[in-house]
C-alpha cells in the first residue's frame, strides 16, 4: 500500500514542532467541570434537568410573572374539564315560588303524572319543572337521570320530594351540568303507593346568576336587569377547575410550591444535618464515632411512615398554618441518618488517603482539612444522594397528604390535590390525573437526573 509513495529528501528534514503540539489535546478539566461535561452528554439527564428547571420556574417564577388565583371559587364552573365552552347565560337569582294547584278528589287509583314540562329556559343554575296534579297524590317524587330511564327501578338520582300537598312543581339546582337530563316524576299516595313515572328530557344551558356575574366582575352593577337573558364570557380555565371551581392550573402552580418546597428543602436540610453529623463522627472517629453512629442506627430503625404520621399528629397544625413546617421537621428528624452514614463512610475512606496525610504533615488545621480536603471529596456522593432524596421526599409528602395526614387545607399540594381528586376519579378524572402527573413527572425527572449525576460524578452509592 505504501509502495506508491516515494518520499523526497525534503520529507526527511527534521520536523519543526509547533508549541501546541506539546499541549495535551484535551483541556484539563476540574472534577466538577468534567462531571458537568459528562452530564451534558447524557441526553436523558439533560432533559430531566430541563424539566426540573421548568418545574421550578412553573411553581416559583410563574406566579411572579403571571397572576394565578388559586383561591377564588367559581361555583358556576365546578369540576370543569379543560377546554369547555365559556359562554354563559345571565339569569336572575330571585327564588322561585313554584306552582300550586287545587287537588282533584283524592281517591281512585293513582295515575301517572301528565303534562310534565320544563318552565322557562332550563339552565345550570336551576331547572324548573311543573306538571298537572294527580288524583290521590300526597306528594311527588322527582328523579334525574343521565340516561333515558328503562323502568321504574332506573330513574336516576332521587332529587327529592315536593314539600306541600298542592305543590306541582320542583326546582332542581343540584350540580347541574350542560348535559342532557331525564327528569322523572312519580306521584306518591298517602299510603305510600307509587304511580308510574313520567319523564321529560332537557338539556340545560350554562348559566351564571346575576349576583355571581357581578361578583366576578363580568357585569357592571348598573345595568343588571337589562343584562338578564344575555350572554357573558366566563373566565378561562386552561386546565379546568376543581370541586370548588378553583382554577386547576393555579392550584397546580401553588401545589407545586408546596410539594417542591417540601421535596427540596427537606432533603437540603437533612443532607446538611447529615453532613455535619456524619462528618463530625467520621472526623472524630473512635468511641465518639461509634456512639454517634449507634444513635443514627436507632433513628434509622424507626418505622418511617408510622413515625411521619405520629410526628405530624404530635406537632399539630394550628389555625391558618399550612403544615409545611411540621412535615419538614418530621422529614428532617427521620431522614438525616442515612446521609450521616454515607458521609461518615466517605470521610473514613478519605481520612486514610495520602493527600490528607500530606496536608496534615504540612501543618493544616482540622478546619482547613475538613473544609478544603475532606468535604469537597464527599460532595459528589452527597449531591447524588440529595438528588435521590428529593423524589422520595415528594412521594412522602404526596402519600401523607393522600391519607389526609399532610399539609393542612387550604394550602394546596399535589398530594392533597390527589387526595381530593381520588374521590371523584370516576366522574372527573382530571382532578386526580393532573396532580398525579405532576408528581410523576417531578419524581421521574429527579430520578433520571440523579442517575445522570451518579454516572457523571462516578459516585459509588454503596454504604
Amino acid at each position, binding site marked *: 500500500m505504501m509502495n506508491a509513495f516515494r518520499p523526497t529528501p525534503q520529507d526527511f528534514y527534521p520536523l519543526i514542532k509547533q508549541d501546541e503540539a506539546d499541549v495535551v489535546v484535551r483541556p484539563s478539566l476540574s472534577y466538577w467541570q468534567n462531571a458537568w461535561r459528562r452530564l451534558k452528554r447524557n441526553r436523558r439527564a439533560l432533559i430531566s434537568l430541563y424539566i426540573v428547571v421548568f418545574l421550578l420556574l412553573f411553581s416559583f417564577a410563574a406566579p411572579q410573572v403571571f397572576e394565578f388565583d388559586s383561591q377564588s371559587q367559581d361555583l358556576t364552573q365546578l369540576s370543569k374539564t379543560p377546554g369547555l365552552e365559556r359562554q354563559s347565560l345571565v339569569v336572575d337569582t330571585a327564588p322561585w315560588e313554584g306552582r300550586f294547584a287545587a287537588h282533584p278528589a283524592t281517591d281512585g287509583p293513582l295515575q301517572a303524572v301528565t303534562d310534565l314540562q320544563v318552565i322557562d329556559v332550563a339552565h345550570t343554575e336551576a331547572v324548573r319543572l311543573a306538571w298537572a296534579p294527580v288524583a290521590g297524590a300526597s306528594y311527588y317524587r322527582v328523579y334525574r337521570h343521565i340516561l333515558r330511564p328503562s323502568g321504574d327501578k332506573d330513574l336516576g338520582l332521587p332529587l327529592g320530594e315536593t314539600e306541600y300537598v298542592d305543590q306541582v312543581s320542583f326546582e332542581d339546582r343540584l350540580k347541574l351540568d350542560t348535559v342532557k337530563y331525564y327528569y322523572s316524576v312519580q306521584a306518591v299516595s298517602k299510603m305510600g303507593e307509587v304511580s308510574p313515572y313520567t319523564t321529560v328530557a332537557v338539556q340545560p344551558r350554562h348559566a351564571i346568576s346575576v349576583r355571581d356575574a357581578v361578583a366576578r366582575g363580568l357585569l357592571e352593577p348598573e345595568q343588571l336587569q337589562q343584562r338578564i337573558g344575555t350572554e357573558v364570557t366566563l373566565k378561562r380555565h386552561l386546565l379546568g377547575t376543581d370541586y370548588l371551581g378553583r382554577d386547576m392550573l393555579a392550584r397546580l402552580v401553588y401545589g407545586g410550591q408546596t410539594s417542591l418546597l417540601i421535596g427540596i428543602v427537606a432533603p437540603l436540610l437533612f443532607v446538611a444535618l447529615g453532613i455535619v453529623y456524619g462528618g463530625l463522627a467520621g472526623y472524630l472517629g473512635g468511641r465518639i464515632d461509634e456512639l454517634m453512629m*449507634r444513635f443514627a*442506627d*436507632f433513628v434509622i*430503625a*424507626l*418505622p*418511617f*411512615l*408510622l*413515625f411521619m*404520621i*405520629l*410526628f405530624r*399528629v*404530635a*406537632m*399539630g397544625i394550628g389555625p391558618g398554618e399550612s403544615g409545611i413546617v411540621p412535615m419538614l421537621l418530621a422529614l428532617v428528624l427521620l431522614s438525616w441518618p442515612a446521609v450521616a452514614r454515607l458521609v461518615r463512610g466517605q470521610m473514613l475512606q478519605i481520612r486514610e488517603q495520602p493527600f490528607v496525610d500530606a496536608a496534615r504533615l504540612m501543618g493544616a488545621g482540622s478546619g482547613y482539612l475538613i473544609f478544603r480536603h475532606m468535604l469537597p471529596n464527599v460532595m459528589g456522593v452527597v449531591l447524588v444522594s440529595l438528588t435521590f432524596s428529593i*423524589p422520595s421526599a415528594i*412521594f412522602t409528602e*404526596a*402519600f401523607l397528604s*393522600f*391519607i*389526609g*395526614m399532610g399539609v393542612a387545607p387550604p394550602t394546596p399540594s399535589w*398530594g392533597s390535590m*390527589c387526595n381530593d381528586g*381520588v374521590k371523584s*376519579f370516576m366522574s372527573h378524572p382530571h382532578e*386526580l390525573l393532573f396532580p*398525579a402527573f405532576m*408528581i*410523576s*413527572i417531578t*419524581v*421521574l425527572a429527579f*430520578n*433520571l437526573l440523579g442517575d445522570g449525576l451518579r454516572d457523571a460524578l462516578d459516585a459509588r452509592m454503596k454504604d
Partner: protein
Amino acid sequence: MTAFILKRLLSGVITIWFIATATFVGMHAVPGNPLLNAKAASPEVQKNLQARYGLDKPVTTQYVIFLNNMLHGEFGISFTQKNRRVNDIIAEHFPVSATLGVLALVIAAAGGIIWGAVTALYRDKWPDATIMLFVVVAVSVPSFVFAMLGQLGILKLNELLGFSLLPVAGWGSFGHMLVPALVLGLGTMAYLTRLMRSSMLEVTSADFIRTARAKGVSTLRIFFKHQLRNAILPVVTVLGPAIAAITTGGFVVELVFAIPGLGRYFVQAVQQLDYTVIMGTTVFYGAFLVIMVLAVDIVYGFIDPRIRVGKSGG
C-alpha cells in the same frame, strides 16, 4: 457467626427500646384527648375512663408501666375497641398485612430479579428499553394511583368476562391478594429491577465472567452459575429495607382494597388517637423490622461466602 448474631440481637433489643421510648414520647406530645367522644362525657365519666386506661397517673409512672408491660409482651386495651387487647388486634391484623407483604415481596423480588436480568441481557435493545420504561413509570407514579387503576382494572376485567374473576375488594381468598400485592410490590419491583440490572451489568463486565468465557463456559451456564448469584447479592442487601417499605407502605393498598391489615388499622388508630393501639403497633412494627433486617443479614451471610466464612464484621 454466633457472636455476630448475639451482638446484633443485643443491639436489636436496645433499638426496640429506643423505638418504644420515641413512640411513647411522640404519643404523649400529641395534643387532644383520646378519651373524648362525639357525645360529651361528664367529668366523672372522664375520670372513670382515665382510671381505666391508667392516664390518671404521672407520665413517668405511665412510662414505667408501659415498658414493664412491653417486657411481658402486653400493650393494653384499645381505646376505641374497648373489649379488645392490642395484642389481639395485632395478632389478628398483622398476619393479613404480612401475608400481603410477603406475596408482594415475592412478586417484587422475583419480578425484579427476572426483569433486571432480562434487561441486562438485552442491554440497549427493545426488551431493555420497554422494561426500563415500565420501571421508570412504576418508580415515578404514586402507589395510590396504581391502587385506583388496579381496582378499576379488575372491575373492567370482570365486566368484560361477564363473571367475577377477581374480587374487587376484601380479604379471604388468594384472588383477594393478587392485585393488591401486585400494586404493593410494584414500586419495590421497579427498584429491584433497576438494582438487578446495574448489578448484572457490573457483574457482566467483571473479570471473572471474562475468565469464565475464556475457559469456554456457555452463555447459559455463565448466566446461571456465575452472573445470577453474584448479581443477586446487592439485591439481597436491600431486601431488609424493602420489607420495611412494603409492610409499612401497605396503608394505601389496604385502604383502597378494603383489606383488614395492620396498616389501615394504624391510620384509623391515629385518626382516633387510640394511644394503646398506636404505641403497640409502632413498637411491634419496629421490632418486626429489626428482626427482618437481622434475618436478611443472616441470609446474606449464607449467600455471600465472604461473610459466612470470614470475620463477623458489622
